[in-house]
């Protein structure tokens, strides 16, 4: 893949010595550890702000008076090829982040609308891949045998695929239709093996542990063991995998939209906004700096949060 290398190289291999007798989840301890780190607090604050921005996009548009699709010919200089009037890409009290060159659409409104699109796609893809990956990973790890053979071969196959090129080719061949839904499907097809691989490995080591043996000795069936003994022990891993998957999908969606096969205009997405700014970067750098900074900070915040979460959970296991 030629985008930023996949951020799924996570090593959560130790479930560690589990406290005997199933101690209560140390959720409170993890939260208090995280709250002590200023980097985590800042990241969470930023994520909350972006989520609010996305959720309130229509409200914000009615406050500023500019929607994401409204043209403002007054804000651009038609004589100079349509560059925004005023310094910094036309930033003013009316247009908080300036306007797009040539058509004068409000960048703030498009950033908010784009946040909605990007987050929706990334979170949906994360949900789908997590559910599919956990279920298939647990089936492969717990039952072994031919189920494991089939699932593992499919995973090998999907991970050997040149995913980016194939995603682009597939998305360009598919009819326009519901673009965000298509993106979620394509991202999920190539994303779930990375979850399933980790879950499979952990399930394999968990199923041979004493507490599973004890549960089996006391007459628990397979379903009960999987849902009551194995799954709860995978909780930390699943949360970390999901948290770190979100920035990965945000980045990939932005990359696909940047290449022109993701979210289609006029619907805005951050990657697509950067793509349309490529032709203008010499005269109007704010046009790419604003969506790029939002994209960067969003990916960064999720990554920082995921990293620290993983560290806090690992520390708890080791204790």
């Amino acid at each position: 893949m030629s985008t930023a290398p996949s951020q799924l190289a996570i090593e959560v291999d130790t479930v560690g010595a589990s406290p005997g007798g199933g101690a209560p989840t140390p959720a409170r301890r993890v939260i208090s550890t995280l709250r002590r780190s200023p980097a985590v607090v800042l990241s969470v604050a930023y994520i909350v702000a972006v989520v609010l921005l996305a959720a309130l996009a229509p409200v914000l548009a009615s406050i500023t008076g500019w929607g994401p699709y409204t043209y403002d010919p007054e804000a651009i200089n038609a004589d100079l090829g349509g560059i925004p009037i005023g310094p910094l890409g036309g930033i003013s009290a009316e247009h908080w982040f300036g306007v797009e060159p040539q058509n004068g659409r409000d960048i703030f409104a498009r950033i908010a609308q784009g946040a909605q699109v990007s987050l929706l796609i990334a979170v949906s893809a994360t949900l789908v891949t997590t559910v599919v990956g956990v279920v298939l990973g647990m089936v492969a790890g717990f039952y072994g045998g031919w189920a494991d053979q089939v699932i593992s071969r499919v995973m090998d196959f999907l991970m050997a695929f040149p995913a980016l090129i194939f995603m682009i080719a597939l998305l360009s061949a598919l009819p326009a239709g519901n673009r965000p839904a298509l993106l979620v499907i394509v991202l999920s097809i190539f994303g779930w093996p990375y979850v399933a691989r980790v879950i499979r490995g952990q399930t394999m080591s968990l199923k041979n542990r004493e507490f599973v043996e004890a549960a089996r000795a006391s007459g628990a069936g397979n379903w009960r063991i999987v849902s009551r003994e194995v799954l709860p022990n995978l909780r930390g891993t699943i949360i970390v995998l999901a948290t770190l998957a979100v920035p990965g999908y945000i980045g990939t969606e932005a990359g696909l939209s940047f290449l022109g096969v993701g979210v289609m205009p006029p619907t805005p997405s951050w990657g697509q906004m950067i793509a349309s700014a490529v032709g203008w970067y010499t005269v109007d750098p704010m046009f790419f700096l604003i969506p790029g900074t939002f994209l960067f900070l969003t990916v960064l915040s999720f990554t920082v949060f995921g990293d620290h979460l993983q560290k806090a959970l690992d520390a708890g296991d080791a204790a």
Partner: protein
Amino acid sequence: MVLYLLRRILSALGILLLISLFTYAIFFLLSPDPAVLICGKTCTPERIDQIRGQLGLDQPFWVQYWEFLRGLVAGRSYGDGPSAIDCAAPCLGFSFQTNESVTNMITSRFPVSATLAIGAAVLWLLAGIGGGLLSAVKQGTWWDRGAMMVALGGISLPNYFVALILQYVLVVQLQILPFPTAVEFGENPLLWFQSYLMPWLVLAFAYASMYARLVRTNVIDTLGENFMRTARAKGLAAPLILRRHALRPALTPVVTLFGMDFAGLLGGALITETVFGLNGVGKLAADSIAKNDQPVIMGVTLLAALFVVFGNVIVDILYTVLDPRVRVTSR
């Protein structure tokens, strides 16, 4: 070992075959009729039929796929009689847009992608491994924190964004570098170097950040292991411990990762090549996708898959050399 090798290569070929089948099927099912595309605006039904016959598009799917595979191995010719067009051994067909042979298009663009990949790889291995090692050894210091902060930025910044910032700062504002142009090395070595410099840096930054994080974690983990304590207890000097005992186990996972990343890049760095206008395989892929040029898309997808799949095989073999524990179990 020979048996193991054979098995790995066979399974790699199997995966490649499956990938080609999937790709072929998807384009067969989803794409608009290529005959109409080739024919253009001034088109008659007879002409479309003629093109279909010549390209074999009137045949059922399995026949077409079989012909494609046979062309890859043995070459094929389109049409018959004096108007037949020959296509030599690794035949991937002809571009619908330019009528050029796809094999030629790919081989002529490959050196650009290889240059990009090699240059970036040198930079990112130096920066990634060096930075990761220093961070691990000086764990907890400001040096460590600073390096890890830069690395965190590197994995979070989309590379097209970095590319735009670099171009804006270095080319437009400071004017240190000229606008990137496609120049041969022989024509003007300096300009050649300058035109590759930014793409190398952009690609290397992202990978180096990831490697630095990985190396740091691995070295710290290794330093905490029992055999390291033994080495320290024996009274070995710290640099010697690091060199002789910590590096090998810490760097083995890097080999795997590097093999996969480098192989992936040889198949074309789509975004970087597109942003900097480098005429490599990645840009070819992007252009052909934009123009719906199926034979070319098929060709670049297969090439990328070939590198990834065989990169995997090579990494597995290297692993058995580097890590004796694997050798015992793999026979």
